[in-house]
């Protein structure tokens, strides 16, 4: 565990040092890429503003992500209920995913106004599809002999769903949640570009003020937020699956 945390730190430190050197030595212009030390200073100087922004973006991403998880699972269950339902509606789920979020975001503002609702909606739209697709595929690939077994002992469809199909879909559900966690943060930031608030706004205003160091500071925080969410899902997945799923045993 220690090694897996330490190993990625090495390239990070190296890259930081190299960037610092390149900027200080004048190879890269500071108004294009700030020195890491400048980013660090911007973080300290604007800590209150950045922390508030981070908090807002976290709230928006998290709310959108939770909505995605709940609705995504529910939609997957509905889609799995019959082949007809699946044929009729699944193409729309795919279509939904291909609609570019950045083009829809202005619509969201019209519907939900300038505020956190739009940010949440944007995070939701960005992150719901991987949950649907992965959960559905997990439910549908339930081991046929196990389905026979449940049938043999007279289990109702609802019992089969909760005692067999959903648990069997857990590994794939977590795969979907991991992807969707990162997408929720992206969705929230896109929402904030348009609706205001959070790290998205900080990036926007800092950019117009030519504060490239602050832009980088905000981007860094947004990435860390995505990473934290991803890590949380990983932990949850590990705790849930450690006793039973082969891929979780290494």
């Amino acid at each position, binding site marked *: 565990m220690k090694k897996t945390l330490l190993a990625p730190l090495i390239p990070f430190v190296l890259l930081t040092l190299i960037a610092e050197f390149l900027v200080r030595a004048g190879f890269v212009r500071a108004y294009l890429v700030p020195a890491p030390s400048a980013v660090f200073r911007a973080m300290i100087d604007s800590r209150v503003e950045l922390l508030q922004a981070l908090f807002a973006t976290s709230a928006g991403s998290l709310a959108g992500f939770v909505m995605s998880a709940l609705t995504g699972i529910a939609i997957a269950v509905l889609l799995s209920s019959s082949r007809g339902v699946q044929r009729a509606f699944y193409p729309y789920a795919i279509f939904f995913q291909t609609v570019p979020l950045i083009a829809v975001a202005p619509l969201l503002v019209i519907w939900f106004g300038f505020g956190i609702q739009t940010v949440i909606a944007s995070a939701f739209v960005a992150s719901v599809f991987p949950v649907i697709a992965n959960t559905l595929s997990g439910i549908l690939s339930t081991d046929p002999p196990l389905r026979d077994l449940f*049938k*043999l*002992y007279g289990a109702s469809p609802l019992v089969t769903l909760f*005692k067999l199909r959903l*648990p069997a879909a857990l590994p794939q559900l977590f795969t979907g949640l991991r992807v969707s966690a990162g997408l929720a943060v992206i969705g929230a930031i896109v929402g904030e570009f348009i609706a205001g608030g959070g790290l998205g706004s900080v990036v926007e205003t800092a950019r117009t003020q030519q504060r490239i160091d602050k832009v980088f500071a905000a981007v860094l925080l947004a990435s860390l937020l995505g990473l934290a969410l991803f890590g949380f899902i990983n932990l949850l997945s590990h705790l849930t699956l450690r*006793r*039973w799923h082969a891929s979780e045993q290494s």
Partner: protein
Amino acid sequence: MAVQLEGVRRVFDNNHVVIDRMDLGVDAGEFLAVLGPSGCGKSTLLRMIARLSEPDSGQIRLQPNGARFETSFVFQDAHLLPWRNVLANAALPLELMGEAKPKRDERARAVLEQVGLLDALDRYPAELSGGMRMRVSLARALVTEPRLLLLDEPFAALDEITRFHLDVQLRELWQRRGMTVIFVTHSVSEAAFLANRAVVLARSGGAIKLDRRLELPAVRNNELRADPRLGQEMRLLLGAIEE
């Protein structure tokens, strides 16, 4: 429980006749081995007897019928629920049938004891060997005290030594409980070792090429494996298969 098949026919994809007008009677308490080449319809036959699929024509009667859940099925691999421990896996059928938890755990524990797994109750399938997993699967099938036990090449994926152990164990369980057993296998030696009666199916259409009562002692143990009488029975079965 006795099983009676009359003119059973099963067709897949409109014109692929897997089983054609099969007649077969199995007496209550019999241990029948069904042999046949891969793809000849053995699993299809078992699934129809278990009412997991319906014949296209003909009849399958179970006697006495009436009570539900008197049939259990063991698959080729253990097919346990990986998120449940051994005890909860063995208790699953009773849970699905609506039995209360104390009762079903008690019965699951008793049957796990019979297959020698009492010290593994809390372990998860991923932590068990292949042989242990198959024993849990066997316990799960027996926990309902079925009067008909259907096994579809249950030990085929195991190493030979583990398989020998399980053969003996299954035979003992059958002798103790007296249920009807239909055991599908493609191993001639396993069929001869385990069963009282063996049926050899043809490559297609489910025609019965040989139906034989095996002349072997009631107690089957590893000494029998080197017994010339077993060899003689195997020769007969093999002859029918190669015909």
